[in-house]
């Protein structure tokens, strides 16, 4: 038993390292992204082995489920010119053909040698430090267990996230919103083709999957209070539903108004800030929740945050502000489904 488990861990660790090495070394970026998706999957198995199911779920939903498609979509937009030879195996080093990042010559320059040597030294030093550090301390597990009853939820991770260290989480939700604002400020979302030719199979699949995904997302948000789950994981699953819609190029998407979107994006943070202010009014301390109402309040907070997080992650995938934002209209510019030239 013990030996088999060790074997499992060893194989998992080695595969993780090999995958990481491959995804950083392989000549083809597409291949690297596929390796990255697999890497996320195995990471999630590693989290399970570390008895961290909440993290495993987040990795499954955000780390792999969403980041992979994000990379795939970006690859398409960046490597447009290189697209011609993407179908077949690229001859030699197809990585940077046509893009602005030309492949440098692969010979080892002195600089590269230096960096390699330095990183090897760094790795050695870090590992040596880990080996000489004595046994891990108990950490904060006891404190968390001691205060769990007052937190309003049963899942210790959710209790830490939303109650004990709620301030961190508020700032984190703000980082997400900041990401969405940044993405909006950089460019507008690419316009879908004027006449989308989504295949009927895909439409049917989306119709089947959409309610299911929404259901699971809501379930995960609700479940966060009791066991594995929470606003982030549930929000990520909700965003998957939106991303499915985006991929399927539905016609009404480009005409989406910006104000409702902005309302949705800021809903979670606004509720969080209001809850923080409520703490000052009632308990005279920021973000402090009255013990008897903590449970329902946190559930409400999670629901609002889950919605906003879902929308934010979908906004990341859309890759820009909606076309109607700030007087840009989808098809007013140049012909052939191409947006008005920005900048």
């Amino acid at each position, binding site marked *: 038993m013990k030996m088999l488990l060790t074997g499992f861990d060893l194989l998992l660790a080695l595969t993780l390292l090999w995958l990481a090495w491959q995804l950083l070394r392989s000549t083809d970026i597409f291949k690297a992204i596929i390796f990255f998706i697999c890497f996320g999957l195995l990471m999630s198995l*590693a989290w399970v082995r570390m008895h961290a199911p909440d993290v495993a779920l987040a990795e499954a939903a955000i780390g792999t489920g969403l980041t992979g498609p*994000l990379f795939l979509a970006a690859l398409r937009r*960046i490597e447009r010119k290189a697209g011609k030879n993407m179908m077949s195996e690229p001859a030699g080093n197809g990585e940077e053909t046509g893009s602005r990042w030309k492949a*440098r010559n692969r010979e080892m320059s002195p600089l590269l040698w230096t960096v390699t040597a330095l*990183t090897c030294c760094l790795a050695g030093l870090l590992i040596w430090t880990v080996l000489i550090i004595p046994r891990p301390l108990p950490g904060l597990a006891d404190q968390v267990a001691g205060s769990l009853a007052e937190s309003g939820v049963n899942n210790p991770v959710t209790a830490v996230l939303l109650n004990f260290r709620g301030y961190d989480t508020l700032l984190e939700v703000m980082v997400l919103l900041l990401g969405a604002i940044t993405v909006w400020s950089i460019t507008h979302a690419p316009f879908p083709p004027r006449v989308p030719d989504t295949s009927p199979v895909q439409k049917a699949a989306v119709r089947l999957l959409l309610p299911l995904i929404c259901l699971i997302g809501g379930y995960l948000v609700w479940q966060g209070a009791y066991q594995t789950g929470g606003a982030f994981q549930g929000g990520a699953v909700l965003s998957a539903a939106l991303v499915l819609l985006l991929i399927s190029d539905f016609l009404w998407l480009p005409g989406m108004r910006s104000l409702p979107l902005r309302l949705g994006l800021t809903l979670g943070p606004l509720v969080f800030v209001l809850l923080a202010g409520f703490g000052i009014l009632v308990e005279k301390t920021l973000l402090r929740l009255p013990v008897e109402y903590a449970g329902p309040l946190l559930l409400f907070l999670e629901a609002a945050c889950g919605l906003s997080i879902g929308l934010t992650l979908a906004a990341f995938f859309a890759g820009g502000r909606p076309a109607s934002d700030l007087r840009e209209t989808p098809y007013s510019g140049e012909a052939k489904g191409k947006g008005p030239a920005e900048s």
Partner: protein
Amino acid sequence: MTTILYSVTGLLLFVFGLFALIVCPHPLRKILGGNVMSAGIFLFLVAASYRADTGEIDAVPQAMVLTGIVVSVCITAVALVLSTRLQQAADQGARRRRKRRREEDAGE
């Protein structure tokens, strides 16, 4: 044993990612490197606080890792959009140059 194994794996992943972030020229590869780096740190963080013998679980590092994952997807998205926009700008510049050249040719 398990702790040490995953800790060392995490640190090695960090170093791999660091190497890619510094050395690789392609922005997508750099962003992938950043993701591997953060995954390594998170693995190290959770592995360092995991105690196989007692099975005791510290929720604080797990919450920290959740925060970290969300932050890192956010940075990934921003960096991807920035590189996309950059490519767009470069394409536009190339098209404009080509057009100008064509006009010059026609003028002659």
